[in-house]
């Protein structure tokens, strides 16, 4: 059987994730630290203030299919990643259509 075991050989693909953070000391660093600790390749990063005490962060990350869900869950569990309004307890959006529309899924 042995189905679904992680073997670390999956090929990473670049995706774009967007986070809204509470803009407090260490918030952005904690996100980046998590990505580094979990060996997620960071291909690009941009951020901008979103109001007085919020920060919108756009991450271009190289992740495997196996990594993706787990890292997103872990990101969403960080105290400064803000819960989105509505039912989803996660302040993380994965822009499935972003790569197709913007053509940025080439690792550049």
């Amino acid at each position, binding site marked *: *059987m*042995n*189905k*679904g*075991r*992680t*073997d670390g050989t999956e090929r990473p693909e670049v995706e774009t994730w967007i986070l809204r953070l509470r803009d*407090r*000391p*260490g918030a952005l*660093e*904690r996100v980046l*630290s998590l990505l580094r*600790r979990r060996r997620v390749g960071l291909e690009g990063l941009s951020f901008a203030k979103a109001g007085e005490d919020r920060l919108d962060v756009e991450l271009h990350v190289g992740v495997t299919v*196996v990594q993706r*869900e*787990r890292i997103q*869950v*872990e990101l969403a*569990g*960080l*105290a*400064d990643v803000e819960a989105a309004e509505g039912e989803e*307890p996660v302040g993380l959006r994965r822009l499935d259509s972003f790569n197709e529309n913007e053509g940025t899924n080439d690792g550049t």
Partner: protein
Amino acid sequence: MNDRPTNGAEWICDSLVEEGVRILFGHPGGAILPFYDALHGRPELRHVLVRHEQAAAHAADGYARATGNVGVCLATSGPGATNLVTGLATAAMDSVPLVALTGQVPTNVMGTDAFQEVDVLGLTIPVTKHGFLVESFEDIPDVMREAFRVARSGRPGPVLVDLPKNVQAAAVPAYWRNRPASVPPSENGTRPAPTDPRLYEVLGQAAELLDNALRPVIMVGRGVVASETSECVRALAEAHRLPVITTLLGLDAFSRNHPLSLGMPGMHGTARANRAIQEADLILGFGLRFDDRVTGPVASFAPAAQIVLFEVDPAVVGRTVKPDLAVVGDLRTTLPAFRGRTRSRAHRGEEWWGRLRTWSRDPSSTVFDAAGEGSPFGGLEDQPPTGREAARALARQIEGAGGQVSTDVGQHQMWMAQELKEGAPATHFTSGGLGTMGYALPAAIGAAFGRADRATWAVAGDGGFQMTLQEMATVVQEDLPVRIVVVNNGYLGMVRQWQELFFEGRYSASRLSGPDMSAVARAYGIPARTVTRRDELTSALRWADAATGPVFLEIRVVNEENVYPLVPPGARLDEMVEEPIPPAPEPATLP
């Protein structure tokens, strides 16, 4: 209304009291002095002065593990704060709820490389669940509430609160102090209820898997101890006659004297546990994270099994072993709900149990029994005990009196893990994830304060003990009845073992020339004895157990001895090496 003049530090004390804190472990210094000044007038907050900040974190950790409450440690800025890092990492790896308060230089000089300034918030990001820098006194109550909530919630962990000196010293107007906090108070130990809308559907699937399994096993981790669901696991196992495997941090979740117990899995686990994992067709994992010391190479772990993981932290799911089914939620909710959905299978499993019984449940049968009748040492009573014999005698003494024990890291840790059998909840504390040498003594200090009704033991090797032995001063100052035991083999024993087995016997930097340990203990004012012969062991342990204050016992054991069973690095669990015929014991010689 409270109109008493106050400052930020006193407000922090108020917050601690509100969160149910009664004891803090720390070491003062310049940047935390306003807080210590406020503490001076707060008898309801007991402060324990440690001799090194690492010990403050470990003591808070031991207190938290023993009580289930949040442990609190504090340190000054700069080196005080950096000394906490190992303790915070230890707690993070083992899911222990801590709040660490650190002094910081005043905000007007932050960023100037001021005296004793260090970016402790940045330093601790990878080893904490969260961190706060309090930049204004107005934020104190909300930050403190959030810190405790984060530390306790979900998978517990350490939280850092960095407190600039001017924030501690700031005068707090009465109107500020009496305004309602925007963060609701947390309750000790509460966790959010599971929110997965598919939870009950998943539980039904898990129950169906169990109903259909022919070779099921339960694996229990620290999550069961932390959630206080040991009884629920036992009831489930007994109802279905399910074999139970307990990881290093789950040893105190299920008695290994129970007929359903298979023992500990992994690198130094029992043959029965490891072979059961490799032949199982279903593994029910409760509150564990499938550490690499448990699984061996992930690709070869439990090749025939479907795996169902019950875990509070969704981020743990799939980090190493990817389960076939994950039940994400608090075990206090999910385990009873799961049990209610299963059908009795007690009549099944005979074939599986017949197979399980062909493998040894004991780690070693080649041990002289120090507590045995007659002449248990076969004429070798004047020889030094082996490390395993010492561990077996210790385990019997500790568990026989309902005690609690912290162990350090290395060979003695594994022997104690193998020999402790009773599994009384929250009685065994060890650094399982980080493997922190120097943990045992300060953690025992915290545990002794947390559970004064239990006899507290700290068991360390001669290597680890020397990393935090200065805490004997803390034990004496507090007159704590901690029984300190050093299992002394004159080596960094596990390093030496690996060098013997995997580096062709090249003992590089693993030989220790220690001091006379008992003499050191006496210098601190602790009554001490040294055991050098097998026949001294039992009486020495009884002497230690009867003590009403701190005592110290050095047990000089055989110098070169290996921990078995052993799964060699890179090998499958079922490729474990069981104990070879032991060599004749040699006299202990200390360099």
